């Protein structure tokens, strides 16, 4: 492939990932290939058994600035443009069909990174948009799964329910943080 053709291909790959990210969608290498072929862009790519074109695309993607790979729950890498689709949001999208994992990992990352417990209503709102009964069922499932025994809840004095991970927050501190967050609207 000539240098000019390689540049065109890289640009086409970049555009494809950006289009997907702008539409809030993660995209895998085989989907990128499919779109490129449909547009007649990737005709010069070698085909099996000579070489795996997806591997070539992966190499191209690795060199594109601002494009990140995420090891998805399905086990394959998916790609997104960090400027259009942040890592945090990409993870949420990836886990959307696995409610228990979505909740557990979101709770863990909040407990670890900020640190803070999160109000259970967080998951009823955009972009989670889960029904209260779906959340309740998922939390029940988590409580029975050995892998998620760190996910737990607390209730503030005013009755608000917060979720946190005991891997990163001790209950006493989580209670303090939850009470404090619940009081912020009265402490302007």
């Amino acid at each position, binding site marked *: 492939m000539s240098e000019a053709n390689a540049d065109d291909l890289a640009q086409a790959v970049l555009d494809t990932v950006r289009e997907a*990210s702008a539409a*809030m969608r993660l995209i895998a290498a085989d989907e990128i290939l499919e779109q490129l072929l449909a547009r007649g862009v990737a005709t010069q790519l070698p085909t099996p058994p000579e070489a795996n074109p997806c591997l070539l695309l992966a190499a191209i993607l690795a060199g594109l600035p601002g494009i990140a790979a995420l090891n998805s729950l399905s086990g394959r890498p998916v790609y997104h443009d960090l*400027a*259009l*689709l*942040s*890592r*945090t*949001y990409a993870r*949420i999208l990836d886990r959307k069909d696995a409610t228990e994992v979505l909740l557990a990992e979101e709770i863990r990352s909040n407990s670890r*990174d*900020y*640190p*803070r417990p*999160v*109000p259970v209503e*967080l998951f009823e*709102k*955009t*972009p989670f948009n889960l029904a209260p009964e779906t959340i309740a069922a998922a939390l029940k499932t988590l409580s029975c799964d050995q892998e998620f025994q760190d996910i737990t809840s607390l209730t503030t004095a*005013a009755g608000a329910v917060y979720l946190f991970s005991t891997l990163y927050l*001790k209950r*006493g*501190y989580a*209670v*303090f*943080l939850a009470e*404090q*967050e*619940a*009081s*912020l*609207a*009265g*402490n*302007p």
Partner: protein
Amino acid sequence: MAVRSGGFVGKVLRVDLSTGKISTEDTLERYGALLGGAGIGYRVLWDEVPAGTGPFDPANKLIFAAGLLVGTSVPCNGRTTITTIFPTCWPRPLVGSGHMGGHFAAKLKYAGYDALIVEGKADKPVWLMIRDAHVEIRDAGHVWGTGIRRTTLEISQEMGPDCVVAAIGQAGENQAPMGMVVNSVSHSAGGVGGVMGGKNLKAVAVQGSGAVRIAGDMAAWEKLIKFHLSILGGNNQHVVPSFPTPQAEYYNPASRWIGQPGKRWGAAKPPVEITGTLRDPNRIAYRTNSAAYFLGDAAWKYTVRGNGCTACPIRCHTMLKVPSVTTKYGIPDTGQNTCVALMFGRSFFTQLAGQKNSETAIEACMVGMHLADDLGLWSNYGQLQRDLRKLYEGGYLKARLGSKEYASIPWEKYDNADPAFLLDLIPRIANRQGELGEVLSRGTGAIFDHWSIPEAQWAEDHTTTYWKMGHPKHHANEDDGQCGVIINTQYNRDAQCHSHTNFVRNGLPLEVQKKLAAAIWGSPDALDAPGDYTPANVPKARRAKWSLVRKELHDALGVCNWMGPWAASPLQERGYAGDDSLESKFVSLATGQAMDREGLDQAGERIFTLHRALTIRDMGHVDMRAGHDLVPPWVFKDQNGAAPFTKGSIRMDPDDIARAMEYFYEIMGWDKKTGAPGKARYAELGLADVGEALDAAGLTPKAEK
């Protein structure tokens, strides 16, 4: 600075209500080094109002001051500072300032004035008309006794369109220390309404046809404005949204950036659906909805729009339309406000205080806003409401109030959290009616004096959030450990400082905050996670000083310290850094004379130190540490008995706070024993005359001599 410096408009207007004399003086000649705002106010009080002057004495003065950046296109520049001998400061009145947003400050500058000094006392009710160079004291007999809305309407009709009216209501007329002045019917400044009333001054109305000159390069100015917009977050400079968005790496459910696509201003005609990316600087106004943040998501359907102050894209002053309140309580269905004033009504009721998504709480807020903003009654940052709750629920009123008066108050409505209770209570206070109304109209200190209640009964009770001198805490140890404590010791009223809390609550993960802290204050240890406090250190004291100096600086520039400083930003590409030298860049371009961050911060420190000097002079003793910089006992207790520095406790340690104060005094260049500046320190800050006067009066530290 040269006389033709930009930013300033050049004149200070002086009106003597006793003699009717109206005059002007050059701003830069006398006040240039103090920039504006409280800087001018403190200087006038220092030079012209003798120690011992009472708030309602004709000798007291009211200084309405805009700031150097007011009336330009700098975001959030709508602040007016009103400085005076502050009437709710207890046990003796001392210097203090009330602050209001809206458009009064900009109008004052467009009329050609950086500040307005009101002195003396009119022999009958008057209002002050300012139309550019035409200034007139007019009779206010026809509006005396009426509320702020009617007064604003009457004067607006008299003056014509495009004026801004700042008026007092009945509380101010009655010289209630808890009176406030309100411009544009809802932008209020607490504690100064009664001082206006004491001067028989019902209102000040301003029309201005001029402009504020920018002396520097216009292209650079526009570029800086665009940059500033790019680093803005939502309300209080919360730089991450409260929910995950595709464009943001971080989110925080506690963030005041709550607007998002799909939400709608349901009471707008037609309703406005929020769409698109709110990262766009042209859509910043959709990020904030104070009503929905403070009152809950249920407030979205009542939202008409976000209102606000001059050149402010945040629009925190939410307008609500709640039709049910007209039929139920006989009040207008539309009201607007922000922060504590928005929650004025709800906060009286224990059952409703802090409650979200309650229709009754929303109605209580509408009733409270209507009455407070019309009668001109201040809340003292919610202390009025906490006082009433403690007095009633603690049995104080039943024991102390005359039985006839007690029986005349509809307590059953209070017990049932019925907003109609406010229709009785709030006018009672504004009109200083009966014993309860009279005492509450004077502020918290009057409760101690009148009913012989020891101050300690408030100061030991965490739920009152009472701090000292008749005023509550304002973002203290619950938000920011020792830094918050230091800040709350420094003023004669609540601290009104948001520099520190806006950073702590900005929504970024602790690790990112610590990186930013290291860059600005020299160490990641300048900041702790809330409730995970480590012992006092120098970087925390440095951050406390920075916070106080920026607060004074913002007041002097006329920019909003509720929205700034802009130490953090939503921009990942900047590592979430804001720009700590933003204010000095704006001042340099506005005036046309280079001023770096350190130079401008020194001006802020000069102003803050002048406040200290006035406090020392008027208290008549130098030992600020023992007599002024006080911390209430509740700060050193934990409701669950946890020890200081226990994770999950805000309890402070007395010895540690003593060390924190010493670090702070040292960084300020003040005497560690007394917490007072010495003569040399005053001189270093350009206040040599102040230092000499205090020294001559024996009010500088002995250690220096």
